[in-house]
């Protein structure tokens, strides 16, 4: 698998896919995309890297254990929901900033929630693929 071309291409692609995944997440509120798609693409970046360079390399590149990524994502999503409660409204109520930003549009807690989804999905796919891929290979 460790062909030079694939390694090089995967390096390039990994970065590109990661940027694209963030783009998907951010524009998801207005165009196709969103946290799911973004998270899946982000994870694919690492899956691709793993297939090209091996799982240990992908793990090193990721830096954090995938399960922490999942926990982080869940925590962010919960925070995005709790924010509404702090404002005295029900759980998961969207709070919005008044002024819109370019590309993203307005900032609001649903976006935070979507980011939580992104990180969760990201971590989930990484964890699943890494676990399956490394099964029987190490320890």
């Amino acid at each position, binding site marked *: 698998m460790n062909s030079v071309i694939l390694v090089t291409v995967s390096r390039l692609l990994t970065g590109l896919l990661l940027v694209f995944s963030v783009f998907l997440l951010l524009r*998801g*509120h*207005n*165009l*196709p*995309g*969103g*946290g*799911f*798609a973004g998270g*899946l*693409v982000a*994870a*694919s970046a690492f*899956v691709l890297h793993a*297939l090209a360079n091996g799982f240990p390399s992908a793990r090193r590149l990721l830096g954090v254990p*995938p*399960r922490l990524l*999942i*926990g982080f*994502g*869940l925590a962010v*999503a*919960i925070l995005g*929901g709790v924010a509404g409660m702090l404002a005295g409204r029900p*759980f*998961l109520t*969207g709070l*919005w900033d008044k002024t819109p930003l370019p590309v993203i*549009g*307005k900032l*609001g807690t*649903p*976006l935070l*929630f*979507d980011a*939580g*989804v992104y990180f*969760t*999905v990201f*971590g*989930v*796919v990484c*964890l*699943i*693929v890494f*676990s*399956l*891929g490394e*099964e*029987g290979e190490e320890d």
Partner: protein
Amino acid sequence: MGTLLVIILGAVFVAAALAPWLHRLCGDRTGLVLSAVPLAATGCFAAMIPRVMAGNAVVFHHAWVPSLGINLDFCVDGLSLLFLLLISAIGTFVTWYAAGYLAGKADLGKFYLYLFGFMGSMMGVVSADHLVLLFVFWELTSLTSYLLIGYYHNEPRSRAAALQALLVTGAGGLAMLAGIILLGRMAGTFEISALLRLDPATLVSQPGFPAILILILLGAFTKSAQFPFHFWLPNAMEAPAPVSAYLHSATMVKAGVFLLARLHPLLSASPLWLPIVAPVGAITMLVGALLALGQSDLKKILAYTTVGVLGTLTMLLGLGTELAVKAAMAYLLAHALYKAALFMTSGSIDHETGTRDPEALGGLRRAMPFTAAAALVAALSMAGLPFLLGFVSKEYFYKALLEAEGPGMLWEMLGLAASVVMVALAATAGFKPFWGALKPTPKPAHEAPWLMWLGPLLLGAASLKTGLFPGMVGDCLVGPATSAVLGGAGESVGLKLWHGWTAALALSVVTLLLGAALYGLLPRIRAARGICRVLGRFGPERGFELLLHGLLSFARWQTHLLQNGHLRNYVLTTVLFTVLLVGWMLPGIVSVPAWDTMVAPHVLTVIVCLLIMAGSVFACVSQSRFNAILAMGVVGLGVAMIFFMFSAPDLAMTQVLVETLALVLFVLAFYRLPSFGQYSGRAVRWRDAALAVVFGAVMATVVLVVQSSHAPDNAVSRFMGEHSLESANGRNVVNVILVDFRALDTLGEISVLAIAALGVFAMLRLRPRGARKETKP
């Protein structure tokens, strides 16, 4: 005084709960300490006599579960009081007796727990004024007796006997519960005294009444060991002697008789009462007497004679005349006094000599003088000799029979036959072991400790005193009880020792003479034991066992059929059940759409659909894992195409991503998975294919049906479309739904993903102990 009653009940249960703890504290003296409770209770109940004699019942009412119509209603009238006194007084003696009989046993604390639990329950049964409350206590007596019969729990025979008693009485109890509920519904109340105040004729004439009668009788008959349910009682002799003395003579088995008496005013109004109850009682009386003759174990003899007496009592209540009821009450009292004593003395014999075979016993009177005295008095009462209560009760018994209507001399002859046997067996139980030459026994005989003969002696004294002066006990107990059974109709006059030269007296004399003769013949009649054994083998007990075994076999067959361990059969059942339920409804709703109303599909759609179908079928038939996975990918991408073509770009995108990842997963996992095995045979495969087609057809029809009509108004999604931008600042409505309108779904969904991922991680990394890392090459 109603409160006093409840306090007594409570005290008995508290004593029960404290017993194990007390046993740790006092050891073998536990019984003596505890016996203060029933002793005090006896005093309290005695104090209630004047009030009850005056016709004022002691009552207590308290709501318990009003939603279900269950209340804590108690009422002590003459009938209850008679029983309460028996329960508490004999309970006291039994407590003493057990202290001697079971001295040094580690389980003594638990024994008293059960014994007092039983005592309290039994008091509850006879004082409850509420049918359901009565049932509650009724079942508690079954349960506590289960624990008491199984006292020698290491013995399989004990456990089996306990279970049998529980099942038989439990089954009857449940029938009775159904009867109670139906009766309560019919009468509009569960309160017994209120029930008995209603006009019985109106209730009895209702169409459902015969069923109620039979259900309640089933409860009473099983509990009181009536034929054909009698067999559990002799088997219950596995219990220690104090238990038999208490439960199987004086108290628990009488609960059924009590119930018959309690509901007598109502139930006996039914035309079915006499033809059912009296014959059942008579048959039981004869069966009990006959089987008792064939026994070679003192306890078994006593047990079968108890069955006989229970039959007698039932028969008398079945006859239902005033005289019969009075005879029943007197007989019940007399029997309780002498039978409890005899059970205890036979227990003492067993305890001190190591055997209960009357043939192996003799001449114990010197070694065991007090026991012998007590046994003799009790046996004389059982035989019905004058100056003992047994005589008085037998007189009334004969009088009632003479008076009863019936074909010819049937009742009299039956009663005579049973009584004759009683005389002979009384001699066997109370006379034979003590008189004659001393026979060597497994243990050298000596007198039992005083705790074990005091009770029987006092009981004997009671038989004697009440026999000599029956008037008093008649006025205080038997009279009020009779009056209560008859619904206040009977006069509460006492009993008389001397009735003059009557036919009953003549029968008594004949009974004694024939009984003595029978006793003489007993050794020869023992030859008939074989017949008894044959009867035992093919009798109702055999039926019970067959029923139980049959049920177990059926259960085994059924479970093997259903829970057969094959997942595919489970899947098959599940899906076929679905097909059945859904398919059942389909013909009513499916309408064949006209071709011309249908939209013609786009060519591309047709191609994609064909791809999906081809992929699905190929996944089924492919012999190679890899091709099957590719086929799955084709299906997944086809579905993505459908999403894309029908305005769902988000879905299409996610589907493509997910399918790609799934493909990666499949490939990663299938590296390590076995290749396809062809396990099923051709016939099975074709059968499955046929079933699959049926299922597919049903689902296709469902799809057709649900496509043919849609909600006329989609207010919900319209609302989302209207508010997506304005209130949620998003143009992609699908995404806004996911993160705002229905964000909770998404929260649950990422939870699912998180669990799944962590699950995969745990599944793969957490290997079972001892498993090798890779077992596959």
